[in-house]
């Protein structure tokens, strides 16, 4: 079993702490996505794991082996890892076959075995026809596949991916997301994947680790991260959300302006809290909804856009708070209309603010 385990991992540049005591355990064969905006420390974390950087504090272990500690780090070449780089980093002076064979040559396999494995991986990545080409002669997507092949062919203990799809155009990126997941299911290497794209993370990951300002905000399955965000940052970063500010008045009740919100889920403390509700969970009504009046408020439609599959609304509450709502196309209310909104309790989530 070769879990990758980070403990108290910290990296500073001058007085700036780029990675701030990160604890993380990646199980054997798991694919974990480090997700966050640029500058959140995810790439630095990956480069620490790879051994290109030495941590200032904390440790990195793979299985029983200690790879990095403060002030010392096993050099990258002795870590049994492989990596896919943002720039692909294909060597322009070697053919595709030579690029892929390189890691095997370093492992001193015999020629026949190298040829066999190169052939196999090029077939798996659908690049066999290009074996004798040079990287400069390939398109971006093809270069990406070669980078995958080169990293996978050495059967690494750990596979690292640094924003591997960010240089591809949108269509290709979508296709390659599934390709990455397919290859992972086939080979099951312990994988750490860095991205700032939530769709990429959701498609590929077993576990998503949301990072912000050098710290882990939340780690969990894609469903947990989306449905049960624990912080405002996570709720906003994944999928976008509406935030209502208010005071916790006990018994999962939050008073936000004139609205009394019953929140079925969440882990709010006392005092000031933020309540998150996703736009597609907001209900719009032309008549006052039945019930005890909780989670209901009057509002005015400011803007409505027809998007084909959905309608996108911007509404304003009495106190000026703006909310976005996404509805089916059946709900058709003109801009300027006075309406009622309902925020279903089971989708209201009180967050520590």
């Amino acid at each position: 079993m070769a879990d990758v385990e980070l403990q108290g991992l910290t990296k500073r540049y001058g007085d700036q702490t780029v990675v701030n005591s990160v604890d993380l355990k990646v199980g054997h064969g798991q694919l974990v996505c480090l997700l966050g905006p640029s500058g959140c420390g995810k790439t630095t974390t990956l480069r620490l794991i790879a051994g290109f950087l030495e941590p200032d504090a904390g440790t990195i272990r793979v299985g029983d082996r200690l790879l990095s500690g403060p002030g010392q780090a096993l050099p990258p070449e002795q870590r049994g890892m492989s990596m896919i780089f943002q720039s692909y980093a294909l060597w322009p002076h070697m053919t595709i076959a030579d690029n892929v064979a390189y890691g095997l040559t370093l492992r001193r396999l015999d020629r026949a075995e190298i040829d066999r494995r190169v052939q196999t991986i090029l077939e798996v990545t659908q690049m066999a026809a290009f074996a004798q080409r040079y990287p400069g002669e390939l398109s971006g997507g093809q270069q990406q596949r070669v980078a995958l092949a080169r990293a996978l062919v050495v059967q690494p203990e750990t596979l690292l991916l640094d924003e591997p799809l960010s240089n591809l155009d949108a269509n290709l990126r979508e296709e390659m997301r599934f390709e990455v997941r397919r290859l992972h299911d086939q080979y099951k290497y312990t994988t750490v994947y860095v991205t700032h794209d939530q769709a990429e993370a959701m498609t590929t990951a077993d576990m998503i680790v949301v990072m912000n300002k050098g710290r882990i905000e939340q780690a969990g399955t894609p469903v947990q991260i989306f449905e049960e965000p624990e912080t405002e940052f996570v709720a906003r970063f994944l999928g976008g959300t509406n935030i209502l500010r208010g005071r916790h008045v006990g018994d999962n009740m939050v008073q936000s302006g004139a609205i009394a919100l019953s929140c079925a889920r969440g882990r709010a403390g006392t005092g000031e809290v933020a309540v998150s509700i996703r736009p597609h969970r907001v209900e719009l009504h032309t008549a006052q909804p039945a019930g005890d009046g909780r989670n209901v408020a009057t509002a005015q439609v400011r803007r409505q856009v027809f998007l084909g599959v959905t309608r996108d609304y911007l509404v304003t509450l009495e106190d000026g708070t703006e909310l976005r709502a996404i509805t089916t196309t059946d709900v058709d209310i003109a801009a300027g209309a006075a309406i009622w909104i309902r925020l279903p309790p089971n989708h209201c989530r009180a967050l520590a603010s």
Partner: protein
Amino acid sequence: MNGAATQAFGGRRFDPSTPVFALLALLLAALIFLPMGWLAVFSLTDRAGHLTLDHFAQLLSDDDMVRPLAVTMIVATSVALLCTLVAAPMAWLIARTDMPLARPVRLLVMASFVTPPFLGAVAWEILAAPNSGLINQLYRLAFDLGRESRLVDIYTLLGLILAIANYTFPYVFILVANGLDRIPADMEDASSILGASRWRTAARITIPLVLPAILAGTLIAFLQAMNNFGSPAIIALPAGFHTMTTKIWSMFQYPPQPGLAAAAAVPLLVITIMLLRTQHAMLGRRGYAVVGGKGGQSRLVRLGWLRWPALGFCMLVVGGAVILPYAALVLTAFAKTLTITWSPAGFGLDNFRFVFFEFSSTPLALKNTFMLGFAAATVGTVVTLVIAYVVSRRAVPGHGLLGFLATAPIAIPGIVFGVGLFFAYTHPPLVIYGTLAIMFIAFLTTELPIGFQQFQAAFRGIHIELEEASRILGASRLRALKDVIAPLIVTAVVSTWCFIFIAAIRELSAAVLLYTANTKVLSVVIYDLNENGELGSIAVLGLLLLVVTFAIIALAYRLPRAQSIPTSA
């Protein structure tokens, strides 16, 4: 750290980068600070070794010193303005308009760039000396005038300014042309789409964007003119006036005045450093002209009938800088006398025979020049390659210091460096004056910045991830260097070697202070021959120098370019 942890790392392998760094830093510091330190000492002490400011006082009060300083400023300012006025429009005409023959003109500008200024000055001496000058001879022949009549005279302040400008304007040209190449076509297209004509776009968008490059070029031209020794030595001395560089040189003739020479070198050094800083600030400003951008081919401005006058203007410039002087050198090399003749009997290989078989200085000078060029180029390439790698990969703490040291010699004018070296190596512990070693140190140090900048640019083009990809797959640092970096850097290695070699074989201003009878080099021999009026022999040696230079440049350009690197992150 617990026991298991230490064990996991095993014995840490010896990391050679730190001692290599320390050694390089020490070497560079010695190369630069030893001569500069001695320069400071000599400028501030009298013969008895007491601290004094007398040399500087004399520098500012003695008319013999003030006048060369004034002449130098006049020459440098005039050259800078002239070069800017000529080269900036030329660069625009060639890069951005449909002027015919743009490519040949560009090549001729490059020829002017690699012509040693002292050789150009000699060629103009052949053309425009008051009596024997070819132009004056033709003038007298054409109008049947007496011996006293002359059309032009090179031995004047104006003659000196023109002779220097001829070989200085390419600096402005290259900076401006590169600046123009880096302006994304989109920026000009954005102006056109808003309704601006091509001319208006050029005036409002293009020219303002290259303005920093133009100003930087002006400063470089000023520095080149100020620190030039060869041209004034050839033109100003016979005309009876001095610039600072020739004045410093004269202080090493009998009776030597080393303290005063050291003090006289200080203003050149200070002005050079100040102007280079200004230039750096101008070109370094982010988000302005020199910042690269993507974008397609720029569309050319149509000149209409104006393209013929434009071509005439360009031909006038390259004619004066290259075509006429080269023709004069060829003619002189084959002519038996310096008098114009139409008879075939007036031409022959006499000068070649003399230079290669009779003139005793030639074999030694050739041997010295090419040995020094070879040694400086080889050692310089290796040293700057290592420094540039360490700096660009931030491989060791303090890498910035190495980069600074490798670039520092650019701020030291050749003649100033020669003065410093003269002091540094005529005193214990290192007495190597009079040996080839001191010439080698001079050439090596002055060419370090070229090599360093070449390799820095090359490493910037090699994404660090290419190296990391090799490391993570199991290659050690040295293995990654061998497998990935070496094949990608080989072109830069050869071209850097060629650059340094070419620069070394033409160096005059430091060499002229450091040579002795046994360590003469080609440039010094040419300078000596000029004092004796042996123009035919100079022409032969000059052509030899040019032929070798062009052959090496051709070789460097023949190299296969490295594969384009698919890392457009």
